[in-house]
Every structure is written in structure tokens, then in C-alpha cells.
């Protein structure tokens, strides 16, 4: 037995359509089985509401008089991309304001437009014979624009990795604040309510699928960027007319020490055309696994610490190797539910009809990491290998002499077995001398020592040095013996040479 989208649209028209939200459908499928569920339900509505950085909008301003090619343009002091014709612009969600920094950005401009707030426009141009004007200042709101079209290259991730932090330092990330030593984990996505998990093989979702986008009507126009169906990280590229959107279903946002973004509400209706599709929409949070990643490792390939399910995540804590980690959502489940409920109501009221997709999304696309043609130096390429060290029982005098003889300003302190136990700087020694105090290296050294790895890019070592305001990082081997040292001075010299 089968149904068609036309038949479902007929039922929407005459009001007899049976619509349920995806969380309810999971219960129906497990109670009645897929066959019965297929017979009872025509449409399943999904929803998600999360921070979707890869979002933006095309805006058309119409021509000024005298005309001007809008080249360098700021909307509420947020830079928009003007390299497309004369009066078309693209504003991206994560662009930060020139004057206000990370607290206001492209995502806020998009929200303010949809909320019909006035937007200050400032533009500059070199001027041409056909576009003579060089500077322009005006204030517009969305109704003054000819078109305001949201176009988001990557939205509605199938699932998203969970973030935690193994280091001893707090991290501010796009996954929110991550406390030291695995104190918390943050996750994103609505799990069984999310669009793609309900149709992971794209039996119905494709190019041309009509969707609910930020309260208005939108369309899927293709695979999102980084669409990775084999890895279960599929994404959607979507578009919609901003003039029909509702500010309740999107929100300009900013993550501390990361910057601006845009929270977006997306709902995709899944027509239950056959039993197989019904079965897929029966997906439950416990079936949806995702990776727990250590954001303390600042590399592309972060180690996967564990596989966890959305039901574990939603329970508020996960257990990893005997350790309990508290979990916190970053996306809004209550608004995701509201998206699915609202879409469901629109279909029941005959206000939203389903569309036939013209081409399903790819199930085979693969994604590769960036090709980098310029080698970046690693710590092992630049570190000093003959490291001068001092022993824990050296007195201030001996440490000072070692530093002067070696012409160094930092010195690792090692135990009798040669293992790294601390660091001393010229400043620590100067303080002791100034106070006329006697002490042993082991008593005054800094015990918590940040180290660098041999194969760590110098760039990352430089960031540690800058962020934690230190001046040197020792490199240790697996036995915690010092095998090298890299200092801020070395890095500045290297960068000075390279650029």
C-alpha cells in the first residue's frame, strides 16, 4: 500500500489529514508498528531550533540617485558582502559589528530586519562613470527592501557532536562554556524531533521540499555544505522570504569569546507515503548516537571519548568510563517543539501544503579536510633541544647563576629522576633577591606547568603562550622528561620572519 503527496494534499484541503509531531510518532510506531502507523498518519512534522552559524541573507536595496555601486557596506555597523552587482548584498550571521564587537552581529541584523526595526546603512565606493556616487548613509527597514531572502548554506545538522573539556582550564567555545576536568558537556540538536533523523535516507526530503523556516515558508535547495550522509552528519541548504518570517522563530545571538551567530527554527514535514517511511519516523532518542569530543584538544581531529545517545544527553548526565558528566543543551527543545507543533497546526488548518521534491539529497557525498599547500611549522621544528634545567634543591643563587650562564629567562625544574616538576622565571628569582629571601627552587617554582607536544603546530603553542600570559612552554616525552623548550621570543622571531 502506498499514498501519494497529491492524495495527502487533498486531505489537507478537505481537513481530513492526520498530522502528528515526530516525538508523538515515535510512540505511535512503537505501539502500533510501522504498518498501522502508516495507515493512521499522513504527515509527521519535525522541528529544531538551534544556533546555525552558516546562515545569512541576500538583500536588494534598489538604486539610489545618483546611483552607487555598494562596495564596502555596513548594516548597523556590521560588514555586509558587496561584491555582487551594485545593490545586492549578502549579510552573514557570524560577522561581528565594527563598533560593538562580538555582542552584535549579522545574526542580530537579520533578526532586527524581520522584527521590522530600522537599520542604519553606511556605504562607500570608489565611484565609476555609471555609478558616480562615493558615499551613502541611509536608514531602512525590511519593507523598504525589494527583496530580503534568507539563504543558509548549512542548517539542521542530522546530529551534532557533544563537547567536553579534559584540560584544567575553562574554555569558551561555540559549544558554550566548557568547565575544566570534564565538569560538563554541551550538546545541540533536538534528537528524535529533528528533521533529518526522521528521513535519514532522503526518501522524501530533497530539492524543492517546502519547509517551515523561521515562521515563514521556506524551501530546501540542496545538500547543505559539509553534508556527510555516510557519517550521519547530513545537513540542509535552505532559503526563504524574510518578509514572511516571524521573529519568534529566530534569534540573533552571541557566544561569549566566540562571537555572533543566529538561532534558527526549522521544521520539515515528512509525508508518510509508505511503511518504510513510517518506520523511519519512529526513530527514538535512544537510537540516535553521537560522539563525545574533547574540545581541550585544539586540532581538527579531536579524539572521540565515547558514543552517547540523545536520550542520555537529555537525561542531564552521561557516564563515561565511570565518570559522571553533567550535560546541558545549547539548542532549545521547547522552541523546537513549538516549531513542530506550529507546522502541524498550519497543515491541519489547510495553510501549508506539501511539495514533491525534484531530486533527493545525496546519500553518498563525502567531505575532505582542507588541502593546505603551505607547511606550518611544528613545535619540534623550532624548539630548543638542549634544555638547561635546575634541580628542586638548587638555591636562589644557583638558579640565578644557571640562568645567567645560559642566558635564559625561564628554566624548567626537574626532580632527581630528571622528571619535570615545575618552572621558574627570572622574575621569580628577582622577587626572592629583592625580598632578601632564601629559598629552594622546589619551594618557589610554579607547579602547574603547561607543556607543548612535539607535533603540535607552533601556532597553537603561540596561542597558549598568549592566552595564559606565560613566556615559555617545555616539551616532555612520555616519561615526563624535558626534551625541549619553546619560548614566546622564538615564536615572535619565527612569525616576524615568515610574514
Amino acid at each position, binding site marked *: 500500500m502506498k499514498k501519494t503527496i497529491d492524495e495527502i494534499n487533498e486531505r489537507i484541503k478537505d481537513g481530513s489529514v492526520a498530522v502528528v509531531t515526530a516525538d508523538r510518532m515515535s510512540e505511535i510506531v512503537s505501539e502500533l508498528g510501522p504498518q498501522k502507523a502508516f495507515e493512521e498518519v499522513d504527515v509527521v512534522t519535525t522541528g529544531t*531550533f538551534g*544556533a546555525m552559524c552558516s546562515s545569512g541573507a541576500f538583500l536588494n536595496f534598489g538604486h539610489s540617485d545618483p546611483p552607487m555601486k555598494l562596495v564596502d557596506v555596513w548594516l548597523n555597523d556590521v560588514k555586509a558582502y558587496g561584491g555582487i552587482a551594485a545593490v545586492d548584498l549578502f549579510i552573514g550571521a557570524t560577522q561581528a559589528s565594527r563598533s560593538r564587537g562580538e*555582542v552584535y552581529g549579522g545574526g542580530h541584523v537579520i533578526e532586527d530586519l524581520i522584527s521590522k526595526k530600522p537599520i542604519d546603512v553606511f556605504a562607500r565606493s570608489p565611484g565609476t562613470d555609471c555609478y558616480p556616487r562615493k558615499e551613502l548613509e541611509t536608514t531602512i527597514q525590511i519593507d523598504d527592501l525589494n527583496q530580503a531572502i534568507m539563504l543558509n548554506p548549512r542548517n539542521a545538522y542530522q546530529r551534532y557532536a557533544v563537547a567536553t573539556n579534559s584540560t584544567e582550564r575553562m574554555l569558551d567555545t561555540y559549544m*558554550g*562554556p566548557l568547565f575544566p576536568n570534564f565538569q*560538563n558537556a*554541551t550538546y545541540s540538536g533536538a534528537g528524535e524531533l529533528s528533521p533529518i533523523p526522521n528521513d535519514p535516507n532522503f526518501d522524501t526530503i530533497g530539492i524543492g521540499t517546502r519547509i517551515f523556516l523561521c515562521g515563514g515558508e521556506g524551501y530546501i535547495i540542496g545538500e547543505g555544505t559539509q553534508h556527510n550522509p555516510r557519517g550521519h552528519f547530513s545537513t540542509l541548504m535552505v532559503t526563504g522570504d524574510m518578509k514572511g518570517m516571524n521573529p519568534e522563530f529566530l*534569534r*540573533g*545571538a*552571541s*557566544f*561569549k569569546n566566540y562571537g555572533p*551567530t543566529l*538561532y534558527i527554527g526549522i521544521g520539515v514535514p515528512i509525508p508518510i507515503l509508505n511503511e518504510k517511511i513510517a518506520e523511519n519516523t519512529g526513530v527514538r532518542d535512544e537510537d540516535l548516537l553521537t560522539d563525545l569530543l574533547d574540545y581541550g584538544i585544539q586540532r581538527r581531529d579531536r579524539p572521540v571519548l565515547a558514543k552517547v545517545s540523545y536520550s542520555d544527553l537529555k537525561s*542531564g548526565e552521561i557516564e563515561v568510563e565511570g565518570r559522571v558528566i*553533567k550535560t*546541558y*543543551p*545549547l*539548542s*532549545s*527543545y*521547547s*522552541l523546537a*517543539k513549538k516549531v513542530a507543533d506550529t507546522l502541524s497546526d498550519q497543515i491541519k488548518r489547510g495553510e501549508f501544503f506539501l511539495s514533491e521534491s525534484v531530486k533527493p539529497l545525496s546519500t553518498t557525498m563525502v567531505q575532505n579536510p582542507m588541502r593546505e599547500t603551505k607547511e606550518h611549522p611544528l613545535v619540534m621544528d623550532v624548539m630548543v633541544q638542549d634544555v638547561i634545567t635546575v634541580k628542586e634543591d638548587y638555591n636562589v643563587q644557583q638558579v640565578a647563576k644557571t640562568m645567567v650562564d645560559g642566558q635564559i629567562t625561564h628554566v624548567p625544574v626537574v626532580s632527581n629522576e630528571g622528571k619535570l616538576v615545575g618552572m621558574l622565571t627570572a622574575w621569580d628569582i628577582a622577587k626572592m633577591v629583592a625580598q632578601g629571601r632564601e629559598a629552594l627552587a622546589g619551594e618557589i617554582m610554579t607547579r602547574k606547568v603547561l607543556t607543548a607536544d612535539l607535533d603540535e603546530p607552533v601556532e597553537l603553542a603561540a596561542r597558549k603562550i598568549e592566552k595564559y600570559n606565560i613566556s615559555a612552554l617545555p616539551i616532555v616525552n612520555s616519561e615526563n622528561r624535558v626534551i625541549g623548550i619553546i619560548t614566546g621570543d622564538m615564536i615572535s622571531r619565527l612569525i616576524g620572519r615568515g610574514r
Partner: protein
Amino acid sequence: MKIRLVYTPSIIQEPLIAEIILETGAKININRADIGAVSGEMVVDVPEDKYNRVVRLFRDKGLKISLLHQPIFRDDARCIACGICTLICPIGVFTIEEDWSISLEAERCIQCGVCVAVCPTSALALSEGEV
């Protein structure tokens, strides 16, 4: 009841709070204290029954007082119920409820301010209090 005290650093030298506690027998709880170069600020919790007397004494000693009936405000039109505030608040003012709404017990807030900086939609603001 919570109050915010603003004082000059010179007052810190005096055992002010101790004196008031001894005089009134009120169990005053210091929620938070910041001491800067030119001024200091403290949020304290005062038991309801001794509240009026304690406030009068603080005023007599020359401290500026604001009453924090509701130390933190949330703009519910901006809040998206993401739950990040539940993660960051050291006091546990915010809670994720069964239905995924986020409740807040504003009166427990000690005005540390971290949630204000972390809330992605700028939905939270500290109250100035009533003078």
C-alpha cells in the same frame, strides 16, 4: 531578603558586619563581596524578621543600600529556553523543567553576573535595585 551595599574601602577596616550581627543577632549571610580601589560592593542576605533594623543600621554607618527584591531579570520575549544559564549559574537559580521550559528563582540570585555575559540572546539583566 537580599540587599546590595556600596561602600568606600575605608569602611572595610571596620568590623561593620560583625558589629551589626552582634547588635541585632541577625544571621546575615554574605553572598558576594567585591572590593575595588575606590569602592566596594557586597550582596548580603538578611533574615526577614530583622530586616528593617539591619537596614537602618547599615544606613547609619554610611553605606549606600539598594533592595534587591528581584536581583535578576529575564526578558521572556528574547529567552529561547536553551538552558545555557542553568550550566553557568553557581547558585542554581535556573532549572530545566520537565517540559523543557527554564524556570528561575530570581530571589536566590547573588548578582555575580556570569549568566548575563553568557546568555546568547542577551535576555538576562541584573537589577539596579531600589534605593
